[in-house]
C-alpha cells in the first residue's frame, strides 16, 4: 500500500469516527516521520530499479537552448520510437556534476554532455567509463575522426562517449576600448595589459588560466618547462583583474554591462552577445585553446538504450539544431554531412574536418599535473 492510500484510509477512519482527533493527528505525525525516515532508503532502491529498468534513461546537460533542442529533436522522437522516457537533468559546471556522480549510486546518472577530453580521462580514471557497442551507433561514422582519436587513446581503442561539438576559448574584447588590430597585435598579452587594470576578467578555472599564462610566457601549453614563470604571470594577471568569473552567464553579464573590457571567453557565448547587438570582438590568438564536448555514458547505465539515444542525438538534423542553439560547431564531419551556412559561419568552425589548426589539451599531460596545479592555482587565485 503506498503512502497516499495509507493516509486516505486514515482520513476515512477519522471521518467515520473510528479514531479520535488526537489519535488521527498522532498517526498522521507518525506516518510523516515514517515517510521521512524511509524516504532516503526507498529513493536509493528506486535508483537501483531505474538503473536496471531501461524504461528510462537520464541525460544531464547544460540546460537552456541546448536542452530545448535535445528535447524537441532527439528525446521526443526517441521516446516515440522506443517507449523509453528520457529524464532531462541539468548541471552548472563539469566539476559540480562529477561531484554529484561520485556521490551517486551506479545507474543513477546515465549520459552526460561533458567538456573535453580532460573530463573523459577523469571519468575513466574514476572507473566511471563504459564500452560502447559502436554497431548500435551507425551515425558515429559521420563524426570527425580526429575528435574520436583522443578518446580511443584513453580507453584502449574503445569509446565511452561520442564527440558532439567543439569550440575555442579565445579572447573577447569590447570594441569601444580595444580595436581589432590592437587585439590581433597583442594576442594573449591583451589579458595582462596594464592599461586595462580593473577592466580585465578571467575564468576562475585552473586549466584555462595556466594555458594562457603559458602562452604569455612564450611556452608550449602542452609542455611547460618553466612553471614558476607561469605562476608569476598568473599573479600579474590577478593584480590587474576585476573578477574571476565562474559561469557563462556571468561572463556574458560582465561583458554586456561593460564591467570588463577584455577576458578570455567561449566562442559560442561571444557569438550570442554579438547577436544581441553588443560590440564585442573575438580573437583566437596564436596557440589559443580549443576543446570538444562529448556525450559520455556513465558506468552502470542501460547500454543499449543509451547507445540508441546517442544515435538519435548524432542525427544530422538534431546535431545541427543543437549547434545553432548553442553556437558551437557540431562534431559532424563537413566532408560527410552537408552543413548549413548557419553552422559553417560559427566561430571555430573548421571546414576541412581535420581540426589541424586547433590546439587541444593533451589529456595525459594535464591529468598528470591536475592535483598539484589545481591546488596551487587555488592559492594564486586568492593572492598567494
Amino acid at each position: 500500500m503506498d503512502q497516499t492510500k495509507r493516509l486516505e484510509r486514515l482520513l476515512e477512519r477519522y471521518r467515520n469516527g473510528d479514531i479520535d482527533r488526537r489519535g488521527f493527528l498522532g498517526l498522521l505525525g507518525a506516518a510523516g516521520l515514517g515517510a521521512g525516515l524511509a524516504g532516503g532508503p526507498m529513493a536509493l532502491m528506486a535508483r537501483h530499479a531505474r538503473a536496471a529498468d531501461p524504461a528510462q534513461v537520464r541525460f544531464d546537460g547544460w540546460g537552456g537552448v541546448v536542452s530545448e533542442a535535445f528535447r524537441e529533436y532527439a528525446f521526443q522522437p526517441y521516446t516515440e520510437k522506443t517507449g523509453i522516457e528520457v529524464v532531462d537533468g541539468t548541471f552548472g559546471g563539469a566539476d559540480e556534476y562529477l561531484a554529484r556522480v561520485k556521490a551517486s549510486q551506479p545507474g543513477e546518472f546515465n549520459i552526460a554532455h561533458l567538456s573535453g577530453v580532460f573530463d573523459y580521462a577523469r571519468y575513466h580514471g574514476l572507473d566511471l567509463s563504459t564500452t560502447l557497442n559502436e554497431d548500435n551507433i551507425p551515425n558515429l561514422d559521420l563524426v570527425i575522426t580526429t575528435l574520436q582519436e583522443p578518446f580511443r587513446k584513453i580507453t584502449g581503442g574503445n569509446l565511452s562517449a561520442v564527440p558532439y561539438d567543439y569550440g575555442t576559448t579565445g579572447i573577447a574584447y569590447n570594441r569601444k576600448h580595444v580595436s581589432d588590430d590592437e587585439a590581433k597585435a597583442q594576442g594573449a598579452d591583451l589579458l595582462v595589459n596594464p592599461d586595462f587594470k580593473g577592466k580585465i576578467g578571467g575564468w576562475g578555472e585552473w586549466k584555462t588560466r595556466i594555458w594562457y599564462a603559458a602562452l604569455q610566457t612564450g611556452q608550449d601549453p602542452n609542455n611547460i618547462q618553466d612553471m614558476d614563470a607561469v605562476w608569476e604571470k598568473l599573479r600579474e594577471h590577478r593584480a590587474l583583474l576585476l573578477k574571476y568569473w565562474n559561469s557563462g552567464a556571468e561572463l556574458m553579464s560582465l561583458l554586456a554591462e561593460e564591467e570588463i573590457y577584455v577576458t578570455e571567453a567561449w566562442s559560442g557565448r561571444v557569438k550570442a552577445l554579438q547577436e544581441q547587438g553588443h560590440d564585442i570582438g573575438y580573437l583566437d590568438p596564436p596557440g589559443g585553446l580549443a576543446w570538444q564536448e562529448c556525450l559520455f555514458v556513465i558506468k552502470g547505465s542501460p547500454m543499449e538504450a543509451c547507445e540508441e539515444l546517442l544515435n538519435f542525438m548524432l542525427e544530422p538534423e538534431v546535431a545541427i539544431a543543437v549547434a545553432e542553439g548553442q553556437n558551437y560547431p557540431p562534431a559532424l564531419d563537413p566532408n560527410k554531412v552537408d552543413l548549413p551556412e548557419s553552422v559553417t559561419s560559427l566561430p571555430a568552425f573548421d571546414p576541412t574536418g581535420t581540426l589541424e589548426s586547433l590546439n587541444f589539451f593533451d589529456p595525459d599531460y594535464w591529468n598528470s599535473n591536475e592535483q598539484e596545479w589545481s591546488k596551487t592555482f587555488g592559492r594564486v587565485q586568492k593572492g598567494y
Partner: protein
Amino acid sequence: MTAITSRLAGFDRRPWVLLSPALLSVTLLLVIPALFIVVYSFWLRTATGADQVTFSLANWREVLTDPFYRDILIQTLRIAALSTITCALVGYIPAYYIAYAPTRHKTLLLVLLMLPFWVSYIIRTMSWINILGVSGAVNSALLWAGLIDEPIQMLYNEATVILGLVHFLLPFMILNIYVSLDGIDRSLTDAARSLGCTGWQAFKEVTLPLSVPGLAAGSLLCFVLGAGTYITPMVLGGPGDAMFANLVFEAIVTQLNWPLGSALSLLLLALLSALVLVYSRFLGIDQIAKSFR
C-alpha cells in the same frame, strides 16, 4: 536495587517521548552525516580523484599548519564580524521602531521584514549587480544628475561582500532584537522616567541592557551564518575576497578532494562551535531563549 527501581519509577519519560522525533531527526540527518565527514577527513585523495580509504593525519596537518588556510580563516572571521556589527548597528533602530509601533502597524511591519525571505538568497545577492554595477541604477542616476562623468567601479570588493552579507543577515538581527524589545515591561521605562531619567537615560539604563539577550542572540546567529557563506563572496567579491567556505567548495567540487574538504569543513565547524561555547560561558546560552520569552 530498590533505589534504582524507585529512581526509575520517578523518571518522567514524557519529555523524552516528546523529544524523540526531533532527536531521531537530528541524529539521522546531522550527527551521522557529520560522523561520515569526520571519517572522510582521515582518508586521502588519489591522483585520479578517487578516495583512498586509510587513516592519515595528512589533511589535518595541512589545514592546521598551512598559513594559507589560517589567513583565509582570519579574513572570514573579520568579514563575518564586520557584517555582524553593521547588522547590529543598522538593525537596532528598525527593531525598536517595530517593537514600539502601534499594534495595527506592527503586523504589517513584521510582514515587510519577512518579505525578503520569499526571494531566493542568490537572486537577492545578484540584485546588487543591477544596483551597483557600471550600468546599474546608482551609476545611471549619478550620470543622469551630472554628478559624475564616468561610472564608478563599486562592485567586486570586500565592501560589496559585506553589503551583500548585511542584506542577507539583517532580518535575522532585527527579528531577534525585536522579540527581546517586545518582551520588555513598558512600566520599567515609565518608572525610570518618573524617577527623573531623560528619555535617552531611560533607554541607556533600562531598555538597552534588557535588550542585550536579543542583540547577543542576533549577533551569534548573524556571525555563524556569515562565516559559513560562500555565495556572497563568489557573486559580489573580487579576486581577494574569498571566504573559508569557498575553500571547502573548491576542495570538494573543483579539486574533488573530499578528504581535504571534510577536514576544512570540520575546522570551520569546530571554530564556530567554540564560539558558541564561549558565548555560553560568558553570556549563557539560555540568554538566547530569554529573548523569545
